[in-house]
């Protein structure tokens, strides 16, 4: 019996990954652009007007995928960070720092779109709802990660310190979420919640799913493109980079 060994660790070298990422990211970018065009078309022209919320609800096609991605990217970032600490691989830290700005962007986008949705629906730009508050704290965690990254000059040390921070953060995210949730019920804050919204029409659901996949593709493409820049920056003293950029 012949088993073909797969060299999983081949792409853990920044040099190999640089070229792999270079081949992959345009595909993800094209997919993201196409899916986003389709998703936006469905959400603006195909999906019916909501009986209760009118046209204003359409922002959830951006809002829901953005908040999902912001939470998911933090988990992925922490996973890369953990890998980096466990195996001492350089690429893991680079991936974590490539993901952080995208995650922060989505957290910000989700807060902005949430505010834009909340004004016509709830009558307020901001309510201290459990979800909103924990999303805001998630943005703070991203900002802390980015700030720590940028204030340590040695990139290896920055990666490791940020890895510890990301792991501490990921342990804390559920604790923060539940504490904010219980705090909210004690204070009797917003009485309107997303969970009580009526069930969605199937075209709305399709549009949402397409947008979710589009945001996934965008995140992957952005992370790969960014990690290529990080690799070039950190490996600039090596011979292969000199050849690669020529």
């Amino acid at each position, binding site marked *: 019996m012949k088993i073909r060994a797969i060299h999983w660790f081949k792409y853990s070298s920044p040099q190999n990954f640089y070229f792999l990422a270079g081949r992959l990211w345009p595909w993800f970018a094209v997919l993201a652009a196409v899916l986003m065009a389709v998703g936006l078309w469905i959400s603006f022209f195909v999906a019916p007007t909501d009986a209760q919320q009118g046209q204003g609800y359409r922002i959830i096609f951006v809002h829901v995928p953005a908040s999902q991605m912001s939470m998911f990217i933090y988990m992925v970032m922490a996973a890369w960070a953990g890998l980096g600490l466990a195996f001492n691989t350089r690429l893991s830290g680079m991936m974590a720092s490539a993901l952080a700005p995208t995650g922060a962007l989505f957290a910000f986008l989700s807060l902005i779109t949430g505010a834009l949705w909340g004004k016509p629906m709830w009558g307020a730009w901001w309510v201290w709802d459990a979800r909103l508050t924990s999303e805001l704290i998630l943005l703070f965690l991203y900002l802390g990660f980015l700030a720590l990254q940028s204030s340590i000059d040695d990139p290896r*040390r920055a990666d490791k310190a940020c890895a*510890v921070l990301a*792991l501490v*953060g990921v*342990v804390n995210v559920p604790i923060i979420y539940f*504490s*904010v949730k219980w705090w909210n019920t004690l204070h009797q804050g917003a009485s309107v919640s997303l969970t009580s919204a009526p069930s969605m029409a199937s075209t709305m659901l399709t549009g949402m799913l397409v947008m979710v996949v589009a945001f996934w593709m965008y995140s992957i493409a952005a992370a790969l493109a960014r990690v290529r820049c990080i690799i070039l920056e950190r490996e600039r003293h090596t011979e292969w980079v000199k050849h690669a950029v020529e």
Partner: protein
Amino acid sequence: MMAFTFKPLGLASVMLAVLRREVSLAMRQKGEVLTPLVFFVVIASLFPLGIGPESALLLRMAPGVLWVSALLAAMLSLQRLFATDYADGSLEQMALSPTPLGLLVAAKALSHFLLSGLPLVLMAPVLGLQFGLDSQALKILMISLLLGTPTLSLIGSIGAALTLGVRGAGVLLSLLILPLYIPVLIFGAGAVEADAAGLGASGHLSLLAALLVLSLFFAPLATTAALRISLE
């Protein structure tokens, strides 16, 4: 030839030695202990000036205001938790010593609590009186601070270790640590409010104790990892 044989110290006595060292160092510079305390009093006194002297409003806000002030005051002295030991090299000696670094770190966090958390616990009732809290609320406030401030010191030690020898460490430390303090703040201030609302504070206090146990176990691990990275 003389053989160097060291009798290994027990873990408890090592921790006690670290504690004694921290306390005696702090006693030689009393300002370091007093500054956070004064800061706490000043911050808590600023709120009525900003909000107005209405006693009903102040009573309503007191637990939150006192807890936020305590949080900021406890953070004020965090930066020095490892910085002086890092500067004079004794932190490296601790990292090299046969005693697990996690235990030494836990002892340092405990000393931080004794020197900056405990004074806040003792000062809080005085400030609470100014806000018009009754004796039952003051009792709950003190218990919640007593359970919460050690957690603040433990979580804070992670941040202090991460920002060791880093540019702009002070501001960075607050950016990293304050979001992680939120659960402690919620349950700490919530305990007093729940008691005032007639719900009983035991639920919140139990959660505070749970956070303390959790951070007592995990925070020294994370701090140790962060210190080893900083000392590389």
